[in-house]
């Protein structure tokens, strides 16, 4: 029972990461389309924000892995 709920929790964390990185990726694409010469700056900030969002989602996954035993 605890393992099933832990698996559902990890899946929800993955959905959260997907939604967050998708939103920031779409805004980055719009920014590049609007001003193509700022590609370098936008790419650096995109990678930074994606790593921070990924950190939060993976904290949730590791917690669900530890508490589901």
């Amino acid at each position: 029972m605890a393992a099933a709920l832990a698996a559902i929790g990890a899946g929800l964390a993955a959905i959260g990461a997907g939604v967050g990185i998708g939103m920031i990726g779409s805004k980055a694409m719009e920014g590049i389309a609007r001003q193509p010469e700022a590609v370098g700056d936008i790419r650096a900030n995109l990678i930074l924000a994606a790593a921070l969002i990924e950190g939060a989602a993976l904290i949730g996954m590791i917690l669900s892995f530890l508490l589901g035993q």
Partner: protein
Amino acid sequence: MSGNISFTLTLAAITFILTNVFGNKHYWGHIFAMPGVPKFVLLILTPVEILGMFTKPFSLMMRLFGNITAGHIVVLSLVSLIFILGDNGNSIPGALVGTGFAIPFVLFMSALELLVAFLQAFIFTLLSAIFIGMAVEDNH
């Protein structure tokens, strides 16, 4: 090594000790008595600030540990697929199919894990530099 939580705990503890040893009066002032708030708000705000002092290095530790461990778990799952399809040494064709299927995925996931590890180490160092810089700045 980063797959062990004690290692990232030590790194985050070093960041925590450095921010609190080298923090100047503005840093401690911002934690305990923020300028411009009435007294009853300060009663609620001080525990939140003290908790925030601990959660920042904690999130650094968990972020690095979680990324490295997730990469390790995926690589372990793909390699154990070889043993599952080979029926623990009982069926040689199954093991060969498993190897042919799993080895390219393991190579790809190892490359991805290397990229993620590089990025997360950079994020850890950048956030540590930001926290230490916020603790030692003079003006506002």
